[in-house]
């Protein structure tokens, strides 16, 4: 049974992800400061904000890779296997001697684990995912020979196989040419149509306005969260730009609830 079959049988219905007073910090300095709100099931939200605004930290916290200092994330029944994170590609060892198909197959970890072998069905799924991102014929190519954009597409293929209900994307269109970006955007639209919850960190505001119904404007403190047009108003963007990027070395302990 391939992923699309499963989808046709029952629509995917991820739980709502409710944040209450979320604080995540580096050292004691908050990167995400008192964030409350809700990612509705099947919503498609862009996270925007200046550099150092805590966007990546927010995604990593949602994926369970960063400890939260305060507050709560409530998402009933959402196990780690049902969340997928597309990190910024820079954190991977691209000189590692591994072929493209094997990278894509990593997406089946929840199903195969450390020991079960990948059968013909799994290999076919991997080939289909590679073809879906325009990397047909790359199955045995070593990852070291891919360009940055091709590598990004490879990570998308791995995401396809993860078949997760909540998908977190950290600057998914970085280093990607226009045609690839529109291909990958097509994948995002399909996921949205299937009822998955999408949360993407993006810098291209035109793209966000065009494609994302909702947006969260973050400047360490949340500035606005809601329908994209209202969130990205000139006034809100101005407030986001006022964020001091440097830490305040004399900062006192935060007393806000």
């Amino acid at each position: 049974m391939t992923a699309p079959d499963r989808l046709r049988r029952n629509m995917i219905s991820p739980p709502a992800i409710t944040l209450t007073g979320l604080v995540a910090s580096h050292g004691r300095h908050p990167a995400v400061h008192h964030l409350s709100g809700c990612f509705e099931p099947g919503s498609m939200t862009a996270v925007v904000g200046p550099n150092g605004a805590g966007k990546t930290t927010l995604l990593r916290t949602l994926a369970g890779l960063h400890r939260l200092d305060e507050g709560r994330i409530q998402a009933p029944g959402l196990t780690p296997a049902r969340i997928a994170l597309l990190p910024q590609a820079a954190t991977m060892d691209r000189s590692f001697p591994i072929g493209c198909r094997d990278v894509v197959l990593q997406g089946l970890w929840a199903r195969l684990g450390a020991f079960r072998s990948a059968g013909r069905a799994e290999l076919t799924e991997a080939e289909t995912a590679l073809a879906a991102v325009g990397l047909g014929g790359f199955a045995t190519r070593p990852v070291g020979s891919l360009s940055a954009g091709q590598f990004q597409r490879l990570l998308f293929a791995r995401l396809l196989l993860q078949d997760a209900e909540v998908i977190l994307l950290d600057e998914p269109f970085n280093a990607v040419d226009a045609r690839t970006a529109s291909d990958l955007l097509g994948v995002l639209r399909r996921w949205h149509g299937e009822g998955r919850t999408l949360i993407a960190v993006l810098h291209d505001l035109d793209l966000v306005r065009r494609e994302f119904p909702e947006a969260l404007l973050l400047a360490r403190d949340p500035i606005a969260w809601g329908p994209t047009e209202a969130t990205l108003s000139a006034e809100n963007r101005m407030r986001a730009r006022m964020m001091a990027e440097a830490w305040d070395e004399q900062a006192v302990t935060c007393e806000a609830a």
Partner: protein
Amino acid sequence: MSLHDLLIAPFAEFGFLRRALVGCLALAVAAPPLGVFLTLRRMSLTAEVLSHAVLPGIAAAYWVAGLSAAAMWAGGMAAGLVVALGAGALARATGGREDSTLTALYLLALAAGVAMISVSGGTGDLSTLLFGSVLGVDDDALLLMAGAATLTLLGLAFAWRPLALECFDPSFAQATGARGGAWHLLFLALVVLNVLAAFQALGTLMAVGLMMLPAIAARHWSRQLSGMVYASVAIAVAASLLGLLLSYHADLPTGPAIVLTAGGLWALSVLAGPVDGALPRLFRRRHLAG
């Protein structure tokens, strides 16, 4: 001197050489795959460090039980694991870098080990310990070497996928719950085990030679992880065989002889290996059409 005299007669004639050969072949099958993973994790020097770190454990065992192989193994294993795991734990607890905590701990262990050995007196024992001796490979040692190889191959078979995933993309491994950290600990334990398996034949100074040199050379023979592992084992087997013959004919200690042979094969790989070798780079063939 006929080919028979050169290649076969020494093994046919001397039982201790046959035992050394079997022991080295066991090592050659198990240690290089670990070495390949070490190079991929940018931990090429870790095996060398651990080979020194086992010294106080061995010395302590010598104090307690004399020249008993089993006791030395237990002592060395304990000391090696304390240094390897201690360095990781210290680095995580205090936020330092693992290589610096590892360096601090192993220097401490090495100094303590040398002090303990010199207090106990026997300099002859010390040089055997440092440079190895084929005569040291008795039946007990042989069984331990073969046992270590078996354990290593079994362990690697289970740890293969999580280890590869942890090397390639640690945060993905963490997010999917692959427990890369736990597998890494098992992996380090196997490295210590193999270093100990090597020290009777090769000596503590050279113990990692058969693990690392073939692994480093393997990069020039394949672009795939599995291909690199096969190549490393083939190189290690050849180095064991030729090294023992060199040691016999040139009357050299076995440790340096085997490691020098492995070094020669590494140099050959760097020069003529099909992947990123020096010669294929020098004589470039015309580019393909597409």
